[in-house]
């Protein structure tokens, strides 16, 4: 068997899929929540990036990974509220507002990194912490499965729990009912006294919190430092995962796993004698292809004419 194939069928490869899926999964859940409330959140990329940096800075200054986590989540929430303020109160086009926030995050993080660490590339001079890995007692001893999900970063477990939580939140709570009603027919929600803006603000804050967790995982779990533009499009891949997962948390989970798989594969292929640039292209090309195939299928079944 080719070493690459052998690697792909190994439990450690499966474990690495979960690891690289984590940030995209968080962000795609954030995309689902925002989208069901009727707001397209393309600022996920920027939210992740800012949270990744804020987590590193806060954990470096307090010496606590969990304070870093909270700081990252809080910055995601703040970004969500800013997006909400401009889109909902000042009626900025939501796509353009998202672009603005992404731009702000891309260069703003470099600005902040330079102000704090006097470096424009990476945060390695900051003594930042990482989120702990956890071993789950009994499960870690089960063969294969134990190797896959027995020992992972705490944020990976949190992401898996979040899938279930977000599902219950959206489909079984009364607030979830309101959120979906707001997304489907805001006038209807408004006419029964539901504050559409309040619901959308909360949805955006939650969306930002989820993206923030994804960002924290990148800089405090996946690796242990912040580097400029380290999200490299994961926020946008999450949007594709949301679409592919039919705006449903479970669907978004499965779609994220697919992207996690290609990402993990490209990591494993680094050892091959293929130019690195090609390998790095894989996740983006796969996203493009999947997006095209899936949209095409939906077009046929839904007969949706152009918007």
């Amino acid at each position, binding site marked *: 068997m080719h070493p690459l194939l052998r690697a792909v069928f190994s439990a450690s490869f499966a474990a690495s899929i979960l690891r690289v899926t984590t940030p995209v999964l968080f962000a795609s859940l954030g995309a689902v929540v925002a989208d069901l409330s009727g707001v397209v959140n393309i600022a996920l990329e920027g939210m992740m990036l800012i949270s990744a940096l804020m987590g590193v800075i806060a954990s470096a200054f307090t010496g606590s990974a969990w304070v870093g986590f909270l700081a990252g989540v809080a910055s995601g929430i703040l970004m969500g509220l800013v997006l909400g303020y401009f889109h909902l109160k000042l*009626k*900025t086009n939501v796509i353009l507002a998202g672009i*603005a926030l992404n731009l702000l995050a*891309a260069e703003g993080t470099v600005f902040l990194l330079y102000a704090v660490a006097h470096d424009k590339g990476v945060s390695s001079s900051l003594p930042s912490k990482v989120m702990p890995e956890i071993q789950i007692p009994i499960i870690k001893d089960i063969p294969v499965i134990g190797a896959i999900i027995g020992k992972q970063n705490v944020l990976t477990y949190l992401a898996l729990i979040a899938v279930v939580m977000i599902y219950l939140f959206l489909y079984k709570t009364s607030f979830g009912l309101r959120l979906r009603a707001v997304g489907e027919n805001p006038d209807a929600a408004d006419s029964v006294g539901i504050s559409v803006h309040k619901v959308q603000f909360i949805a955006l804050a939650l969306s930002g919190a989820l993206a923030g967790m994804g960002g924290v995982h990148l800089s405090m779990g996946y690796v242990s430092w912040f580097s400029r533009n380290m999200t490299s499009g994961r926020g*946008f891949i999450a949007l*594709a995962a949301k679409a592919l997962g039919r705006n449903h948390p479970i669907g978004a989970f499965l779609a994220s796993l697919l992207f996690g798989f290609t990402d993990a594969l490209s990591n494993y292929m680094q050892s091959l004698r293929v130019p690195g640039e090609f390998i790095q292209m894989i996740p983006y090309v796969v996203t*493009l292809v999947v997006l095209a195939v899936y*949209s095409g299928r939906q077009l046929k079944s839904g007969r949706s*004419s152009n*918007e």
Partner: protein
Amino acid sequence: MRRNAWFELLRTGVAIAAALIIGFIVTSLVSESPAEAFGYFLKGPFTSIRRFGSFLEAAVPLTFTGLAVSLVFSAGQFNMGAEGQFFIGAVAATAAGIFLDLPPVIHTVACLAAGMVAGAIGGFIPGILKARWNASELVASLMLNYVFLKLGMYLITYHLRDPSAGALVSLPLKESSWLPQFTRTTKLHAGVFVMFLVVFACYYFLYRTSKGYEARMTGQNISFARYSGIPVLKVMLLIQVLGGAVAGLGGAVEMLGIYRRFQWQASPGYGFDGVIIAILARNNPLLVPLAAVFLAYLRVGADVMAMYADVSAEMVSIIQAVIILLVTAEAFLAGYRHRLTLKEVKQRASAS
């Protein structure tokens, strides 16, 4: 009509002023001497001929990406691909400049054409995905930016690299392909003429041709366009290809006029600046050079500030983000406009 134009101008002015104030506040948070730093930022581009030149030079690529984004925005498309198209256009022009063997002017034209074709392909891909399969051009073009960046770096590293140079740069372009520079003090070059040509071509296309009319109506109301018999999918594809060609041409002009050997390691960010320019110019090609000059001014000012003061140039992104947010905010100052309307209605009522 006139009231509207005046109001838009006012709103843009207030947004820029607010953005500068916020920029100053941020500067004073990180700087020992914020007033001095901000002074460099505002006055920097005018402090020497070389800087003034570099500020005008910087407006050239920005005009190209601004036009590219204006074209696709006019047709109601959210194509963020100008970044990657500009980059791959520059790579294509580099390849043509190195490998082709042609007499001077013809070589230049061939390189420009190579950049246009590469950029056009970059527009065609999200365009066809959207037109044929209804895939979001937003996500597709963002993904494509990464693909083009990697593809471009692969070509430079493995096929165009100058092995004798210490850094990762391409071989120099043949002199026959260059766009001549006007003086020794600045790098201002003949690409400016190409730029103005493209500005007028874009304006003519959008406002004076049937295809441009199709594009604008598709952007105004796609259901109306379809109903009227405008082939909206073809229009979307065409406008993405044209936008890509303009962005790619911009990359080529930059290579032939300024760098003359490829030396970027990362995407230079002109594509996203193009979005801000298109917004400031309200998608009107004739206003794009003005907006580009303004943005170039911000960029060069920030560089001067970073050089002489303790604030890094990325501060300018905060100003840019605030400008986008406020200029596109429909409700920003809308209360003022409503009071204005109310007053006018009352005046009319009391007059009659």
